[in-house]
């Protein structure tokens, strides 16, 4: 089961999908596309400590994707 964690004000929201279930894949992809269009950055990550990689296109085979809101200077 793959998952997407979207960071937000009330903590992260988890979206899961089974790569063999096209409805779940479509729903997850729609969320991914909607947020990346709003400026969210997506990172495909694996085990702890492993360096993630930026993704710009939804990958249904990804283990875990983390979406972070736009970063601004403080």
């Amino acid at each position, binding site marked *: 089961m793959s998952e997407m964690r979207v960071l937000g004000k009330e903590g992260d929201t988890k979206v899961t999908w089974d790569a063999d279930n096209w409805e779940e894949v479509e729903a997850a992809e729609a969320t991914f596309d909607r947020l990346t269009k709003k400026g969210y950055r997506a990172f495909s990550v694996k085990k702890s400590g492993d360096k993630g990689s930026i993704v710009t296109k939804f990958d249904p085979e990804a283990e875990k994707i983390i979406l972070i809101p736009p970063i*601004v200077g403080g």
Partner: protein
Amino acid sequence: MCPTYTADPGGTGGTYRSSAGTAGRTWNTWATHNDSTASAHSTSAAWTAWSEGTVSNATPINYDPAYYIPVHQTPKQLEAAAEASRQRKEKREQANARAEELLRSMLTQEQQDQLNIMSAFIIETELRKYRIRRGRSTNVDELDGSGKVVARLCAHPREGVPNADTMLAQMLMLQTDEAEFRRIANISVIR
């Protein structure tokens, strides 16, 4: 001590009179910056009036109804407000716990130990070493080879996410696009 407020019968809907004692009248003056002539005063005059207690007996107060906060609520209203506050606190704690769990799932054991001991963890990019401290702003330190802080960086998610989520976002950005993070961040060089 909270004063009571009653609508001024001859008023225009936005005027109230205080019926409380000295403490209440003083509070009224401080809160509304008015004096006995109902003219707006500067903040410093209001402060003087408050600290010296030099307030007349019946002080007309003009309130913008949009900003009027009722000081007396029914027991039911108080109970509802307390419950709403409790729920907000619970939501915040749950959000923080989830963020902490997610952050720790992305750290090595060494980084988790660092987080436990010094409320910070260290990451290394191709070019530099950084320490990410707990917090939201100016919490990223650039370290030199000896571990000395040479610069402080401030960049965080635009949304007010839990601090652990901020730290995760900073780590992911630095690891994957250090140049962009440094371009966005406000950087203070430590001399």
